[in-house]
């Protein structure tokens, strides 16, 4: 029996949809990498532009990394390397590969972003639920929280970070200002990153709860005498699940790819910092690796969220199949 259920569940999964999406994702990745490759090469300057470097040494270095062969040949050989799982050597950091460098920075950014998402999304849902339920009653705390959320929505991330650092690190001196070593160092960067999912999730859930709470079927559930908690979770939160899943993927991807300002302010050795340094130094392979990874994160998160949406509501197969 259970084997049968399992089999039919596997059969019913949208395999064709998944294959289609994977193919499109791969294509997008190839386009992103090719575009970045061409953009990088059209930029003036190169990794070995050092006035102290003799011309012969520069030429030898360029020959060593095959920078003087035709552009399309380099592109093809880069993709050949990628297929073998080889991201190439770093051009500026002597003796280190791109994979090596990514191993230093990616876990940091990934941990920060995921932590912010894991804390921020449920917190946003909770706040949204509370705001939706108190809507219409003259609750001053709710009005205060809502005003605060609008203020956070209106501020760029460096302002939120600045405010938090000024209050908790400078004035109160409870927490360290920057860097990442002890758990206490993680509090302020994660709190800054959290603000985005908290604001967007709470507004989304609030809107949905306000729409749902006065529906007749919800009143009926109260009349039945169902426990409050059950009504909240099952009937008030459920309608917001679909838009929540749809919004979480770009949110999480943005937390990972958009933490430039936070990494800059807190001097965190993550992907954003590495990316900026690599652009300035014209470290072509590192820029390519990071851009590809950013695009990959975005694609994977979008795929997961669209997959969840399709599982929740199979009618969406059409609209999410690019």
């Amino acid at each position, binding site marked *: 029996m259970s084997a049968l259920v399992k089999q039919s569940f596997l059969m019913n999964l949208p395999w064709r949809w998944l294959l289609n999406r994977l193919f499109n994702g791969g294509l997008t990745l190839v386009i992103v990498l090719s575009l970045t490759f061409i*953009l990088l090469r059209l*930029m*003036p300057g190169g990794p070995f532009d050092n006035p102290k470097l003799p011309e012969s040494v520069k030429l030898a270095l360029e020959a060593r990394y095959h920078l003087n062969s035709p552009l399309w040949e380099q592109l093809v050989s880069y993709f050949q390397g990628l297929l073998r799982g080889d991201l190439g050597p770093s051009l500026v950091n002597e003796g280190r590969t791109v994979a090596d460098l990514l191993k230093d920075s990616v876990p940091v950014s990934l941990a920060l972003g995921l932590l912010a998402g894991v804390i921020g999304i449920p917190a946003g849902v909770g706040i949204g639920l509370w705001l939706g339920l108190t809507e219409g009653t003259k609750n001053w705390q709710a009005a205060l929280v809502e005003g605060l959320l609008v203020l956070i*929505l209106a501020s*760029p991330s460096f302002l939120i970070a*600045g405010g938090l650092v000024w209050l908790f690190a400078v004035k109160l001196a409870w927490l360290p200002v920057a860097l990442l070593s002890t758990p206490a160092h993680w509090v302020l960067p994660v709190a800054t990153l959290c603000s985005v999912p908290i604001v967007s999730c709470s507004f989304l859930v609030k809107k949905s709860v306000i729409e749902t709470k006065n529906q007749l079927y919800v009143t009926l559930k109260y009349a039945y005498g169902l426990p409050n908690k059950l009504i909240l979770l099952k009937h008030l939160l459920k309608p917001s699940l679909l838009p929540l899943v749809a919004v979480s993927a770009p949110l999480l991807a943005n937390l990972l*790819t958009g933490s430039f300002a936070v990494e800059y302010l807190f001097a965190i050795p993550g992907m954003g910092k590495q990316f900026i340094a690599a652009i300035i130094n014209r470290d072509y392979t590192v820029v390519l690796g990071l*851009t590809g990874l950013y695009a990959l994160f975005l694609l994977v998160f979008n795929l997961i969220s669209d997959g969840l949406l399709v599982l929740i509501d199979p009618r969406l197969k059409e609209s999410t199949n*690019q």
Partner: protein
Amino acid sequence: MQSAVVPPKANNPLLVSLQSTWGTWGLALVILGALSVPFLGQDATFIHVKSPLLAPFSNFSFPLGTDDLGRDLLSRLAVGATISLLVGSVVGGLSALAGLALGLLGGLNEGKSIDTAINRLIDLVYSLPSLVIVVLMAVFLEPFILNLLPTTVNSTDWIRPVVKVTGLILALAFFSWPDTAKIIRAETLRLVREPFVEAYYSLGGGIGRLITKHLLPNLAPYLLLSLTLSVPRAILTESTLSFIGLGIEAPLSSWGTLAAEGWYLLKTAPHILVLATAGILLSMLCFHQITQQIDRQFARK
């Protein structure tokens, strides 16, 4: 032939309701501040060596004080408003134009290959890591545009920062138009199914007049809505990039560069950060208020 919709009049409910929000008036204040640069009587880039880091309201000729180099903060704030609003409005305008054109093109040719192509392009832009590519494009476009210009213009010293801003604007607009195109396409799809469009076609009307007389007036509120979303986002991204040092460059300055400066001087001159913050926050809150008002007006329909 009579137009099927009432053309926007002075008592258009959307415009009337916008007049009654403080968002519109706050934004007008910011624009007024940006336009006041030539009337302030101070050069924002002039360095007054003898009076660095003056506190606000302490000196009559520098009403809001000076920064660490002795530059007048009031005029720097106004210049910042000019640059931030300029970037925001040009990005908004470009993405509105591109979004309107491509959204209409897709919506009027639903299901045809041109529509599919536009949709694919939108999906591609959405799947790009935007901030990363904006940084890359802004760095790349600067020398690229410089190479295109004739050498006589090229050698003037004001051209570099201007070209840098242009590159940033183009990069931001590239990621901003798909939102507008999506809204316009969906709305066009809804409109072309309305009976008045069918009546228009059956009377032998052409496509050009349909767009200018019938579709555009109906699309205008949606275009306004997409502008109130794209302009503040461009301003916010620009200020974040300028803050990290990848956006606007000296001698130009925006609220983001001013905030970066205030950040370094937080302990000695906190008023610099407060002023830059006030500029950004005020305009963002105004845009938020206007968006909410338009949303409310749509919900009332």
